[in-house]
């Protein structure tokens, strides 16, 4: 059937795989957004900038103190997460009783400031960051050459996504989190420190963005605009999946990566907008998103 459109099946397989890889980034980023929105009700527009910070953190760790990729994979998200905790304590926690719009504007402004600062110091061309030795090279799958590093990106993303979903939906800690956002007073009465829990949740969501940034650093050049280019797409993913739905974020993240990849084969010029077309259609038919609960 696909051969009728002039695309041999093995090329299609390759494109599906590439779509999955891009989808990994969408999934990890939109997961962070979904966690933050679902549990804190903050539309975190600075997510892209924090993703960029993750990439820069790993670049800085390597170039300033000689810490390589693997430790950076743990350290950079911790650094970005800690930064997120500071943000939450200093700024965001003043906004919880206000309309969503305030959080959106604040985080949008933060994103612009962060990007501006990094652009001022590091320029726009980006910084080189090599693929770690142990993951260089690749496998010939017959239909395509799969770089080891990209395979690792898929594995790491799936593990992180599944782990997060499991913690929030299936564990006691996750139950506290969900309960704490539903009724903070009641949960607080059971002796649980709700504000701390919220702060740590924001820190965790932000650390997910940082993690995606470290994963991205060796593939894309580490540059201040990398988050800005991605964030709009990721928001579209979150909207399509349903704001705040963890599972929705993961599944639509991977799914839309694949859709975008296929568009690149059949109609490359449309690949930049296909996600927004889907978003428009979904919003018309099911405004709460594919996996969202009707408000």
């Amino acid at each position, binding site marked *: 059937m696909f051969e009728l459109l002039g695309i041999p099946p093995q090329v299609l397989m390759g494109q599906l795989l*590439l779509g999955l890889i891009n989808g990994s980034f969408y999934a990890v980023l939109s997961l962070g957004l979904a966690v933050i929105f679902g549990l804190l009700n903050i539309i975190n527009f600075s997510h892209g900038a924090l993703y960029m910070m993750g990439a820069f953190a790993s670049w800085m760790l390597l170039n300033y103190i000689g810490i390589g990729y693997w430790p950076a994979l743990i350290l950079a998200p911790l650094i970005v997460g800690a930064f997120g905790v500071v943000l939450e304590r200093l700024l965001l926690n003043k906004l919880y009783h206000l309309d969503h719009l305030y959080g959106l504007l604040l985080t949008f402004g933060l994103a612009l400031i962060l990007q501006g600062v990094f652009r001022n110091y590091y320029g726009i*061309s980006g910084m080189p960051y090599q693929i770690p030795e142990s993951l260089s090279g690749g496998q010939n799958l017959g239909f395509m*050459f799969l770089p080891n590093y990209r395979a690792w990106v898929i594995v790491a993303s799936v593990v992180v996504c599944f782990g997060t979903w499991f913690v929030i939906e299936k564990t006691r800690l996750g139950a506290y989190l969900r309960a704490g956002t539903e009724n903070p007073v009641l949960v607080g009465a059971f002796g649980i420190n709700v504000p701390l829990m919220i702060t740590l949740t924001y820190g965790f969501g932000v650390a997910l963005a940082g993690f995606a940034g470290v994963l991205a650093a060796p593939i894309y050049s580490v540059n201040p605009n990398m988050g800005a280019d991605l964030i709009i797409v990721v928001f579209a993913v979150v909207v399509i999946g349903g704001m705040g739905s963890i599972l929705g974020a993961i599944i639509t993240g991977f799914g839309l990566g694949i859709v975008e990849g296929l568009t*690149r084969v059949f109609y490359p010029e449309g690949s930049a907008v296909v996600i927004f077309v889907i978003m428009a259609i979904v919003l018309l038919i099911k405004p709460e998103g594919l996996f969202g609960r009707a408000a």
Partner: protein
Amino acid sequence: MLKKLTLGTAFAALAAGGAFAADIDVKLGVLNDRSGIYSDIAGEGSVIAARLAVEDFKAAEKGINVEIVSADHQNKPDVGSNIARQWYDQDGVTAIVDVPTSSVALAVAGITAEANGVFLASGPGSTGVTREQCRPTTIHWTYDTAALANGTGKAVTLAGGKKWFFLTADYAFGHSLQNNTASVVEANGGEVVGSVNVPFPANDFSSFLLQAQGSGADVIGLANAGGDTINAIKQAAEFGITQAGQKLAGLLIFINDVHALGTQTAQGLQMTSAFYWDRDDTTRAFSERFEAERGSKPNMITAGVYGAVTHYLAAVEATGTTEGETVTAWMKANPADDKLFGKVTIRGDGRAIHDMYLFEVKTPAESTGEWDLLKTISTISGEEAFLPMLPECDFSAK
């Protein structure tokens, strides 16, 4: 305070008593990308280059008061047009400088002609600037896509890269670069086996690279620039495309891009440029001054801004006016002996003719410093590099 004032007046009187009775006010508007994908290539660097040109020309001593203003066109033709209009109509700008991103440059060229200003184009690549959309008041100084094609495209084809596949940035510049290169490839016995239009700007090139790989081409031509080129080259290395025997031809690569990629990834890549900082003592001296302010070596766009502004000031000095058609006519009639580009003549259509160079990126072993990145392969004469003039674009007779 009073002392300073009298001193100032004395100097002003001295200057006025020189070659000219009346002072001339020149206002240069440096219009380029200050925050987006091309802001490292041009951006503040072009403003610095323009300022260095004004200083070196000693404009103040010659009775020319130069003011430099700058703005961000955000790579959007509508934004660029609005700024250009305001500059000419309200702010008294006499010449607009740089303007990378061909779509914006073409809009600015039209507005400049209407306002009878001067457009000193260094940043844009489209040949349309001096061909399909030629204007009497445009001077296209540094390079164009035809010159790039005649450099890299020809060299790679003659070296055996016969079958080409293009990854093309989907806007005026990318298409212009692809068309020019395709004709050079075909003229030299090669063929184009396919192309794909990549939305601009793009992060992920893997899908497109895979299509290029599947096409069976010898050479993948990158008809894009800046961050797009960097990502494409980086990802081509990752997907083992060059190891598998396909060659990459970066059709527009700046020294900043090579610097960002590092010699490890970029080694062996061939590129065409009008300027390299390490060519002779003069270029090295200029580049050192530039680097002290900018933090990076100048590239061909910023070097071109320096040359174009210098020649423009010479024209203003000689003609005693800033009126566009008069100034550009003088610039076309009088060749420049440019510090950075060597001998530069300007044709009737506004195309500046000078040598271009084919470079190859050094290997990590060959490179001795952070900016020691290129070695010269060959010199391409101006006549060979640029397209001939369209008869209807010859504005020199006026």
